[in-house]
């Protein structure tokens, strides 16, 4: 029960780290720290460099399932139910998240419960129970995600996975991080044990600790984690270049739906550790910063034409948890891609919306940014990016991502790099890295045959508005409606085949 002695004055939570973040390589565990001595909270992140790209053939989903058998299952000392009971009064979770390259086991605890929490967290990581019932439950969770959440209840997540499958076909990134239905079905407890023993090693671990912890705490935690086998780094797996796309290749995912969602894009040869990423970041923000109203795509497709709810562009993978507007840390990927996302439109405007989005990318390619647009966008990003890591846990995750990419703290790097840019740098990067001649496009639709027919016919797709649009819209539409989409190929995939094997 709450007593006066309990320090509820949590106002001491320091927003910006009181001390500089740092990375060490003491012993064999790579460690990242973000001390904030006055904070009553401590965040602990264990980043293992193993993700769905390391799933063995036929066992797609093994990395995610292994992560859950560590972070969402029992330990040798406690059943899963007992573990939950122990964690519950602290209101701290053991969170687990597997992406293409990494798996993060993490949590935040109050300093009052930190010792007990840490015991449970390390117990989970060092001594997984590998219980059959835990396997069955976690497998069901992943299966339900693939077969119901993605296939049947969330067209937008479906499209997001679809465009990645198209761009990274024949690449270790192809499958959802949750794996495939047949892959999951084939996974046994022995598979999980073997995968754990191979990949949950000191060599694969990056430890992150942030907040009001002591040096003794950190030393003790590292000592405990040194019980992991030394192992060998599994990030040495070769990451091939995605197969280059030739022409505009369409995938139509057919399912029951009232609207049409559209993505198109192509692989990029750079990520945020490359200096060229930053001029491209300015151009992308100008074109379609996620969930803002000032990107060109948003202004033109939604603002001036009322086509849908939102239109954005990206130069790296965007994780899409509900309701967030800024990029989520914790999903570093060495191989990135450019993409445009047109949120669901009514079927009668899908052809036009696709053309309009292509038109906007082409416009960017042809005219670039003006000096004024460049300065406005650059200054926006420098300020806006400071909001991307408001919580202790997010700041620690951004720092660990940065270490993963072997680069300075990302948000500082944005300011440094952007302050050194000119509009010419930005426009050169656009021409160097973006294009619309060769891309993959994915459309989620209930009538793929009709979509295929209008894409192949490539006839003009004039808009019918419910009110008089601006004169410049009428003028631009004459061009947009007749843009040759010229698809190189069109493949129809019934949604039931998605994520199957």
């Amino acid at each position, binding site marked *: *029960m*709450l007593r006066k002695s309990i320090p*509820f004055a*949590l106002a001491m*939570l320091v*927003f910006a780290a009181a001390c500089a973040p740092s990375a060490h390589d003491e012993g064999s565990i790579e460690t990242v720290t973000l001390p904030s001595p006055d904070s009553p909270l401590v965040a602990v992140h264990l980043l293992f460099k193993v993700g769905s790209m390391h799933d063995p053939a036929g066992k797609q989903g093994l990395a995610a399932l292994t*992560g859950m058998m560590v972070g*969402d299952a029992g330990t040798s000392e406690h059943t*899963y139910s007992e573990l*939950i*009971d122990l*964690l519950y*009064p*602290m*209101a701290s*979770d*053991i*969170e687990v998240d*597997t992406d293409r390259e990494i798996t993060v086991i993490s949590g935040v605890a109050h300093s009052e419960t930190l010792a007990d929490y840490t015991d449970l967290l390390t117990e989970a990581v060092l001594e997984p129970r590998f219980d059959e019932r835990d396997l069955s*439950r976690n497998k*069901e*969770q*992943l299966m*339900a*995600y693939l*077969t119901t*959440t993605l296939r*049947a*209840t969330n067209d*937008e*997540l479906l499209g997001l996975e679809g465009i990645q499958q198209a761009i990274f076909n024949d690449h270790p990134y192809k499958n959802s991080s949750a794996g495939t239905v047949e892959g999951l*079905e084939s996974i046994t407890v022995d598979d999980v044990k073997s995968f754990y023993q191979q990949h949950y090693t000191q060599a694969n671990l990056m430890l992150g600790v942030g907040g009001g912890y002591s040096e003794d705490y950190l030393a003790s935690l590292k000592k405990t984690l040194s019980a992991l086998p030394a192992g060998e780094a599994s990030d040495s797996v070769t990451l091939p270049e995605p197969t280059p796309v030739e022409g505009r290749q369409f995938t139509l995912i057919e399912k029951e739906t009232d*609207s049409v969602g559209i993505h198109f894009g192509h692989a990029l040869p750079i990520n945020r550790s490359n200096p060229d990423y930053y001029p491209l970041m300015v151009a992308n923000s100008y074109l379609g910063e996620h969930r*803002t109203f*000032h990107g060109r795509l948003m202004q033109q497709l939604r603002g*001036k*034409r009322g086509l*849908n*709810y939102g239109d954005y562009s990206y130069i790296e993978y965007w994780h899409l948890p*509900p309701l967030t507007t*800024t990029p989520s840390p*914790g999903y570093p990927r060495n191989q990135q891609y450019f993409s445009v996302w047109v*949120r669901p*439109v*009514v079927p009668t405007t899908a052809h036009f919306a696709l053309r309009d989005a292509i038109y906007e990318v082409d416009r960017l390619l042809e005219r670039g940014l003006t000096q004024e647009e460049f300065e*406005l966008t650059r*200054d926006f990003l420098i*300020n*806006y990016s400071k*909001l991307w890591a*408001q*919580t202790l*846990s997010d700041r620690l995750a951004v720092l660990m991502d940065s270490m993963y990419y072997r680069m300075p703290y990302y948000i500082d790097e944005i300011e440094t790099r952007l302050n050194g840019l000119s509009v010419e740098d930005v426009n050169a990067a656009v021409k160097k890295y973006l294009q619309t001649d060769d891309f993959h496009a994915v459309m989620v639709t209930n009538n793929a045959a009709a979509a295929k027919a209008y894409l192949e016919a490539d006839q003009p797709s004039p808009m019918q*508005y*419910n*009110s*008089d649009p601006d004169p410049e819209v009428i003028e631009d539409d004459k061009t947009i409606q007749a843009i040759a989409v010229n698809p190189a190929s069109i493949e129809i995939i*019934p*949604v*039931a085949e998605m994520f199957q094997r």
Partner: protein
Amino acid sequence: MCNKLLVALAVLGVTVIAVAPASAEDEIFPYTIHEKTLDNGLRIVVIPYDSPGTVAFMTAVRTGSRDEVEPGHSGFAHFFEHMMFRGTDKYSGDEYNDLLKRMGADSNADTSDDRTRYYLTGPAVELETMMDMESDRFKHLDYSEEVFKREALAVLGEYNKNISSPFLPMWERLRELAFQQHTYSHTTMGYLDDIKAMPDYYDYSLGFFARFYRPENSVLLVVGDADPEEVFTLAAKYYGDWEPGYQEPTVAAEPPQEEHQESHIDWPAPIRPYLMAGYRIPAFSSETVDTAALGIIEQLLFSESAPLYQQLMVEDQWVDSLQTINFDHRDPYLFTIFSRIKSNDLVPKVQAAIDEHIQKLQDELVDAEYLERVKSHMRYSFALGLNSPDALRDVIGTYLWVTGDPSEVNRIYAQYQKVTPEDIQRVARETFQPNQTTTVTLSYPASDEAATGATTGAGR
């Protein structure tokens, strides 16, 4: 324990709750709340917080879909939220967006049953600009009929993006069955037919702005690197001439529910079945322990540690998702359960298990030690959640629109402190009555075998 990959399921929000002693010096909320009300009735709340260089700024209008009393206008409060970004004489929509971009703010708005809120988080040095641009649109919003009609299409697009989830049709059905008189009978998104008719209501929209977007129906909240006196001075400068004139709508009271309501929705594609059950509950109140007791019951039944959750999720593994929707409301509302079940044949078994555990709460006093564990969880959950200016904005914001008073946070948590096993039993008996329950199920109308196939490899 939580898998972030699966978090797409958990879109329904979480009730943030905790406990606190009653004495002022031990109030749960650890930050000082500064308040002032302007002559025109606008309330300003400032909470200094250690976020160097950053403030979270919010305007809440205490009008939401609850206020859509005229037939055929469901969803209008939400639609109007969109119109608020369409500019004024001083700052056109494009200029408003340019200002936001110039300051690097994170900005958006959302609407729910009881309110519409507009928020931006950005540099503290831009606070005066925020006051200027925000006050301007609340005083002088101006848009053409063409722009109005176009924006209605964006709302239709929003409906279209949401309707691919079974949640929205189930939510629509549950509410229209549970409420016959009160406007909580429709969702905030509104009915599709009403959304399609929106382009014809330009004149209605002007009246909507004039009736509801008034200072005495609104509140400003500033959290972060801000001096309260400076905020009050700026607010007086920019909002002082906002003319009052709020016309409170007459929202019909909902009579007691007489009998159990149930309905089923067929889904056109293979899917795991869903169960939604709503129980009528009183309006939010910190005057008694009842709201707090219900918050604790939510934990006793549906937290990860709860026996029911353990049975359904961990032991029997009949469900892969079990959530509650329990947001504080101005008027009597619903405590709602939402679950995704492994196969069609298990739906009645899951319903029976839920009923059984509710019955146990009604029949037996909850163990005092277990109750203390729940209160500990709530206390730490509250503490861990106050981790950014935006988080504080969200915690305090709820009370600003439910009762208008940010100090509710301390009063309600004082009530949590007082909840006894007897309170739990009494509130469980009063709330979970068959005649106060509405149940909606959704499934693919094939055989159980086919529906199960959806989970294990349909379309192979």
